[in-house]
């Protein structure tokens, strides 16, 4: 699906590609498809293999979005990097706990904590 509007913001902090969401809700299937392809494109083009996805401002998340995170986790691991998640609202954190995906993902309270936990160098 083509769209002129990016649903994500990307910055590089040290050796980490930092991703933030532009939308409050990450529910809609078409939007998630767009997020999925944007994420994969940026990660494959990035000079670094470490990725932080910051959920600041995100209020809702569907299982389709969880699927995208799992795909991204596999891609990042394949590239020899780490994926970390941060700033997840307590209601959304509950979704990770119910699905037991809190065991798969490394989740930090804040972006600073997550950035500090990436391997140095």
């Amino acid at each position, binding site marked *: 699906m083509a769209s002129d509007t990016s649903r994500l913001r990307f910055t590089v902090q040290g050796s980490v590609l930092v991703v933030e969401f532009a939308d409050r809700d990450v*529910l809609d299937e078409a939007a998630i498809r767009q997020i999925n392809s944007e994420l994969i494109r940026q990660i494959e083009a990035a000079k670094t293999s470490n990725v932080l996805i910051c959920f600041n401002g995100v209020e809702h998340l569907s299982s389709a979005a969880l699927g995208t995170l799992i795909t991204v986790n596999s891609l990042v691991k394949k590239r020899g990097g780490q994926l970390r998640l941060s700033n997840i609202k307590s*209601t959304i954190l509950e979704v990770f706990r119910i699905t037991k995906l809190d065991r798969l993902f490394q989740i930090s309270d804040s972006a600073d904590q997550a950035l500090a936990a990436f391997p140095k160098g």
Partner: protein
Amino acid sequence: MSSSKTGSDTGSMTVSASADELESLQASVAAALVKHEFGEHALFAIRLAIEEAVMNAIRHGNLSDPSKTVEARWMVSADSAAFHIIDQGEGFDPGAVPDPTLDENLEIPSGRGLMLIRAYMSEVRHHGSGNHLEMIFRREAAA
């Protein structure tokens, strides 16, 4: 949407694969929930369950056929909110859906919708061949 003498609000909507229609359904349900003073956690839970139920109905029920639709009906009262999500597919066996929380399934990107519905709703029933999902959120069960 209509209100009854018993104080419940009922409504129905037909949804195709359009995100705007699903958003319109979510807005109508949210308005009924707010009217009956459901809290923030209930609104979150019900929004997620409707999203998952309708997306499952479109994708797995109607096999994303744009000529097929999903019927959504709801009844919201002071102590519960009940929903029926009916697709035009051939149904499925809910018992055959693999447990996505098992270690061997944890990295599979799909298959968590029904689990989230069961986790957030107080009662979940499948009718007919499996193409009719009934889900009820009871207020006393809310965390």
